[in-house]
């Protein structure tokens, strides 16, 4: 009896010890994301997948970190990052001067463009940036798109998400939504409710660069990630992943 008790106690101690150890090693990097297909989105098992999600997992796995995904409000991303709720923003983030000032950014890993989404029957009305004048334009608040239409005289409807901006167009409450190329492509492809009713139009917006964001001064982690991005580009991992998620034509160079 005494012996079995001793064994039990030993087992408990070992278990507790291992549990403690794993907790200590559980140095997970928390990645801030929004639901943004095909970069970061939830699959049918509610797991985060997408080009950015898989790339981030691979990069941090190679660096010996576990990753955790945390859904954030895009408008308050900088605050969330600085508050320590998340460690990294990896969510198809377009580099802007404002971001450069406030956070540390990785090398550019994708190049994106903004597209318009309009009802199919009005497609011919939208050929250039100038055709936005006097229209009701829906954008995500604080997004690259909002920045692009800053000086255009049009009604600006600033929604909380890109998908809400697109819904405005489908409901007819806005004439056009300006969203990322990847988003526009996903939403107009088969399987989407908008397939056939909405169409993506190229208005000739300038190229934007996607980068990963770190807390200002977190240059050590940034350098490690940059090195990994270089390696994964060279060994073809990134190209393969980009093909999988249909963003291969956004790869640099």
């Amino acid at each position, binding site marked *: 009896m005494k012996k079995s008790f001793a064994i039990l106690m030993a087992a408990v101690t070992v278990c507790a010890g291992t549990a403690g150890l794993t907790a200590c090693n559980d140095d997970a990097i928390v990645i801030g994301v929004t639901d943004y297909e095909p970069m970061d989105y939830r699959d049918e098992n509610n797991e985060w997948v997408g080009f950015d999600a898989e790339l981030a997992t691979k990069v941090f796995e190679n660096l010996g970190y576990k990753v955790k995904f945390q859904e954030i409000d895009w*408008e*308050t991303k*900088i*605050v969330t990052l600085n508050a320590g709720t998340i460690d990294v923003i990896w969510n198809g983030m377009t580099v802007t001067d*404002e971001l450069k000032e*406030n956070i540390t950014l990785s090398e550019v890993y994708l190049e994106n463009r903004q597209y318009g989404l309009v009802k199919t029957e009005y497609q011919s009305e939208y050929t250039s940036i100038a055709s936005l004048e006097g229209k009701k334009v829906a954008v995500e*608040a*604080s997004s690259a798109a909002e920045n692009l239409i800053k000086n255009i005289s049009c009604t600006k*409807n*600033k*929604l*909380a998400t890109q998908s809400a901006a697109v*819904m*405005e167009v*489908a*409901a*007819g*409450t806005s004439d056009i939504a300006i969203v990322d190329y990847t988003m526009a492509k996903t939403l107009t492809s088969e399987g989407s409710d908008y397939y056939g009713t909405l169409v993506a139009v190229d208005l000739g917006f300038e190229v934007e660069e996607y980068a990963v964001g770190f807390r200002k001064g977190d240059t050590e982690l940034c350098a490690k990630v940059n090195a990994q991005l270089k390696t994964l580009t060279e060994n073809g991992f990134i190209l393969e992943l980009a093909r999988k998620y249909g963003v291969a034509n956004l790869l640099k160079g």
Partner: protein
Amino acid sequence: MWWNVTVTLLEGFGMTCLIFFLTLIIALPLGLIIAFGSTSKFKAISYPVKILVWIVRGTPLMLQILIFFYAPGLLFGWHGLERFTTIIVAFSINYACYFSEIYRSGFQSVPRGQYEAGQVLGMTRRQIFFKVIMMQVVRRILPPMGNEIITLVKDTSLARIITVQEILQVAFSRYVSKGIIWPLFYTGVFYLLFIGILTLLFHYLEKRMSYYRI
């Protein structure tokens, strides 16, 4: 800086107040009509009204706003209501339903004897309603009404879901998005002051109404 932020937030707060007062003006009488409907002796009236109240109280106000704004266009291709109008309609219907239940509780809590006493004194039905019942009802429903009205002040922040420029939306779009956080918390002061005034007002009204205690 502080002064500029205050002025900018006040613009948003103007919208907040506008939503609040318009909703109140429409929902207070509308709630009374709904209360009469749901207590009607005719089932053809009371059942549909009860179902309406169930639907409105059974779904989030945010969802109701989204449905009022987007559903006409999405389902029928209609040109729906403007953003601000949508907010007033959705808020008024929502709050009218909550108010109706408060009114109902008020009417049903007045003892039968009060009606009978009026009859004994030879009062007409009209006189009984306005001179005997009404003031007792008002006195009884004041505290729950105050509660609901205070909730309305804070619910106005839901208008931002369809980009109506109320105070929180202004704080987010003008400051938080540029990395300036404190104006977001500063908006709390505006709500607190407004609700502080409402609280005092309701205290005063309750005191005045204590005359009608039975």
